């Protein structure tokens, strides 16, 4: 018997985005730690915040703002990049219908005008320089 967690499509996509974001931040931290010996305390000093705040973000328990991500990237000698990629339609499903139940969908729109909901966002953090 299969089991499915009841979650709305928008919450599902948000959760996936945050998961990937935390993963990218943590990966960048591991790389900086390995290559430059960067510690959480050093990052906290650069960001002028408590070390526990940095720890929470790296553990995935935080909700870093775009500004915090930019500062964190600076501390890790990285440059964050942003891409908003359109989700391809599958079959006769509109992109935002994918993975969700019909009952929890917003009313579908007609026409080809792109709306913010038509996009999924993606952040990634890349290391700067050699």
């Amino acid at each position, binding site marked *: 018997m299969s*089991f499915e*967690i009841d*979650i709305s499509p928008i*919450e*599902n996509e*948000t*959760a*996936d985005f*945050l*998961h*990937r974001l*935390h*993963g990218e931040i*943590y*990966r960048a931290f*591991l790389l900086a730690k390995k290559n430059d010996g960067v510690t959480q305390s050093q990052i906290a000093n650069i960001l002028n915040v408590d070390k526990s705040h940095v720890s*929470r973000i790296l*553990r*995935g*328990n*935080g*909700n870093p703002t775009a500004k915090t991500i930019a500062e964190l990237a600076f501390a890790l000698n990285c440059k964050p990049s942003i891409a908003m990629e359109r989700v391809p339609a599958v079959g006769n499903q509109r992109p935002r219908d994918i993975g969700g139940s019909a009952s929890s969908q917003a009313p579908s729109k007609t026409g080809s005008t792109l709306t913010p909901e038509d996009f999924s966002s993606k952040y990634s953090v890349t290391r700067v320089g050699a």
Partner: protein
Amino acid sequence: MYARTTVVDWLLENLNDLEADGYVEGASTPKQQVVAHFRSFIRGDDMRLFMAPRLMRPNEQHVWELRTPDLRFFGWFYRRCCFVMTGVDTASRCKEYDLYTGYRRECVEWRNSCGLDPPLVLEGSYEHVF
């Protein structure tokens, strides 16, 4: 991914009401964490990059712990990428009451009694089971 009914029941009873430990406005809820983590597993992401799965000690029992920031899943790999969850709890409870040994034992006892075709366990480290 497979799960004992006790795990499914726990998720149904608790997941909607759980809040992130050390509550931060907008941080991923445990429910979002679970959905994103399972999705990442199914997608075939490299799980070592963030909240890496842990092979519990003693390693010879081949019991694994999958982790989200606030939750812990215990189980074993029956086959490659085929994870069977036998226990779940909050990270805070696992740490506070040191529940790890109990969940590990429960996993071993249950898999020995559930009548699966041999070999019962896929042995090895991350590269062997993912």
